[in-house]
């Protein structure tokens, strides 16, 4: 019997807010089934995944370190998604930002360049990401190509470009032929917040970005033009908001924040350039943005939740010899559950009679 989705007129705020929570619960159930199928005790697996990391100060710090790029990228994506522009290529913009920022670190390597290097790297990181993000924006505005495809494909271009650089021009001559750059000088590294652990200054940047985004999206005309451009394009044009400018703007912001996340990660926890600089932050941030309801505060919470799946996944790799792909499955299940919950909250399913019975 065919099914039909019908839009519901009255959707309570409570139900909208509950959707992500329900999605998380569904993900846990699916996860439990998966663990049982893998022959593991689901209770023990969940303890290792989600409980143990929270009891350890070191992993708590690590949680924040992993949430940092997700938060930065997720906020940028919220700009795009609110405007109904589907930037799927944050991973590529992250890489592009990391590459341009690292260029300065490597160019000044071994010189007595002062403390201006780190801020300049951040600026270059943002510029790199923004430029990479503007490519799909330009293609959409000029040729009407789908930004979903172009932004995604540019991820692979960026990743392969990075691969070439670290295996070629940027390879550390004293690095035993390993495909990695020299370790950055101190002036090119993110300052640590505490002596112990890996908490770095990037977290401050991310929190400032979240506060700024909350303000811009909620209180300014720019935020309003993004919102209305996404929800009613013709009304936005009537209001005098230029659709092309909004497209360029949200991709630039989104790319810049992803690029910033990239250079912060490279100059922070990693400390040098290598072929892989992200465990898929740019894609996981899509989930963070959706789970966080495209609101910076929500994305902050969602980033911590998703960071937990990364940490738990690492722990499970070690103590249960679970493949890291399990984490990916978790994250993917979560995204599908959120999207499904969103649909089910806004629409109701009805069975449609196929034939007339008059």
């Amino acid at each position: 019997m065919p099914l039909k989705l019908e839009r519901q007129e009255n959707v309570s705020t409570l139900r909208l807010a509950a959707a992500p929570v329900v999605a998380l619960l569904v993900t846990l159930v699916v996860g439990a089934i998966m663990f049982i199928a893998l022959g593991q005790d689901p209770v023990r697996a969940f303890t290792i995944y989600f409980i143990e990391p929270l009891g350890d100060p070191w992993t708590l710090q690590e949680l924040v370190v992993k949430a940092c790029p997700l938060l930065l990228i997720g906020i940028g994506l919220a700009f795009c998604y609110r405007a109904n522009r589907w930037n799927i290529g944050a991973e590529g913009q992250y890489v592009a930002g990391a590459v341009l920022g690292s260029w300065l670190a490597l160019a000044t390597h071994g010189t007595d360049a002062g403390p201006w290097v780190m801020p300049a790297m951040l600026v270059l990181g943002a510029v790199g990401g923004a430029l990479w993000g503007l490519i799909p924006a330009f293609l959409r505005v000029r040729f009407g190509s789908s930004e979903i495809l172009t932004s995604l494909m540019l991820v692979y271009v960026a990743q392969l470009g990075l691969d070439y650089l670290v295996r070629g021009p940027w390879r550390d001559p004293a690095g035993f032929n390993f495909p990695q750059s020299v370790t950055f000088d101190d002036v090119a590294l993110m300052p640590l917040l505490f002596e112990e652990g890996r908490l770095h200054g990037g977290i401050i940047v991310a929190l400032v970005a979240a506060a700024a985004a909350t303000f811009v999206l909620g209180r300014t005309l720019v935020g309003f033009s993004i919102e209305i451009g996404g929800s009613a394009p013709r009304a936005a044009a009537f209001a005098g908001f230029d659709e092309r400018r909004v497209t360029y703007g949200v991709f630039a912001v989104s790319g810049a924040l992803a690029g910033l996340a990239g250079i912060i990660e490279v100059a922070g926890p990693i400390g040098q350039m290598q072929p892989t600089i992200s465990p898929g932050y740019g894609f996981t941030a899509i989930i963070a943005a959706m789970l966080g309801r495209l609101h910076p505060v929500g994305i902050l919470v969602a980033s911590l939740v998703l960071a937990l799946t990364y940490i738990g996944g690492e722990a499970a790799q070690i103590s249960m010899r679970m493949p890291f792909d399990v984490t990916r499955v978790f994250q993917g299940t979560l995204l599908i559950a959120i999207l499904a919950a969103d649909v089910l909250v806004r629409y109701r399913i009805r069975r449609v009679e196929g034939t007339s019975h008059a």
Partner: protein
Amino acid sequence: MTVGVDAATDLPASILEAVGLTKRFGALVANDHVSLAIRAGETHALLGENGAGKSTLVKMMCGLLQPDSGELLYDGAPAFFPDPASSRARGVGVVFQHFALFDALTVVENVALGLPGHEPLPALAARIEECVHRYGLAVEPWRRVGELSVGERQRVEIVRCLLGDPRVLILDEPTSVLTPDESENLFRTVDLLTGEGRAVLFISHKLDEVRRLCHRATVLRGGKFIAEVDPKQESSAGLARLMVGADVPRTPRLVTHEIGEPRLLVRKLDVAGDGSRGSALHEIDLEIRAGEIVGIAGVAGNGQTTLFEVLSGEKLAEDPESIVIDKVPAGALGPTERRALRAGFVPEERLGHAAAPDLPLSDNVLLTTHGDAGIVSYGVIRRGAVKDYFQRIVKGFDVRFGGRDPKARRLSGGNLQKFVIGREVLRKPVLLVVDQPTWGVDAAAAAFIRTTLREKAAEGCAVLVISQDLDELLEFADRIAVMSEGHLTAPVPVAETSREAIGLAMGGAHGAHDVGRDGAAQTPAGEGADAS
């Protein structure tokens, strides 16, 4: 189809009957024990003001809403319609005011989407042609809906309903978007349908039409059944009194003020058509002075939408000098800059163009006021100022809605239109361009809107009204021009023209040929525009 007779009343048997339907939305009783019988072979009018409960009643009769109490009878037996599909299956077809058509698809594709099963398109197209000929509906199956005028789209919706062979056809404000000729054609179609023993429920606020066309009229007011009358026995004023509960004032049209400076000057405005959407404009000349209302009549799809967009700045003119607002060349300015010249615009489409359907009303205030002093400072929205402005619209223009600040889509058409008009009027514009001011709006709200525009003109605003409702223009415009095939005739004072002259200038193609607008294409543009 045979027409049974109800033995008790000696009237034709009712096909669909509502008995004591009640529907509550929270504290609001939208329908309070409303009864209505639609009988075979008759055209039944449903009359009522905005918010009188007409839409609620129609939605219950077709299964979109479920009544809280009361019941529906179908052929005299209790019927339950859990959804529109089940009512459709029993032979109840509805043509709503807002069409549900996909612009990018052809007529036949759109029709196919609404039908169960998988009929091959050519076969369906043949069935459409047959239906078109039988009822004189002028629809071409293979055209893209995006290219069609509002009137043509309505005919597509009607054809779509008729292919389901309905016994009851419900038409929601069908003539609000039609020219007099198109309306005549629709009436002929309705007569053919009732002649076959079908029943038509005709929702309208145009009392003359109801009196001419309908055999019976049910009047609702405030959610309650007021009367069932024979409209042919009532005067228009009498019907209006029943609807409103008081006498409806006609718009005062005495000009007691000076006509002043030109506020809008359009000189040799050419706009190239862009294919499927938006027709071309050819050498438009127009001058509107402070204190006057100029009306543009014409059949939908003759360039009015393009004209509106090029005046509002959504489309730019090639020559900046071709549009002059209050002495400033404005052809190259965007909407915000034109509003800064104190021009105000009200588009035809309320949802999606004049207002963002899913944003709350207070946000919709910002849509056209964000450039005005005090609303936004240094890029930051001043929420307090917006709320104040919102309250002023609501109070000054009697906008009614449930809740404190609902989404625009939750408002009825009339109330949203009052909101949209109020939003512009409170900006104290020197030029107001309004496209279809009373499209699908009930009589009282329409009168209110016309009076408001009249008052603005009296205060020295120049008002341009684009309307397909010729009666409306004749009632309250000072001068009337006619748009046809992208050409505009010179405006003439209302007193010096006639319905007939204007009708002729509209293109003269409708009614004469039942192929519709294609006939118009052969008529030299501007022919019969002797009014100029």
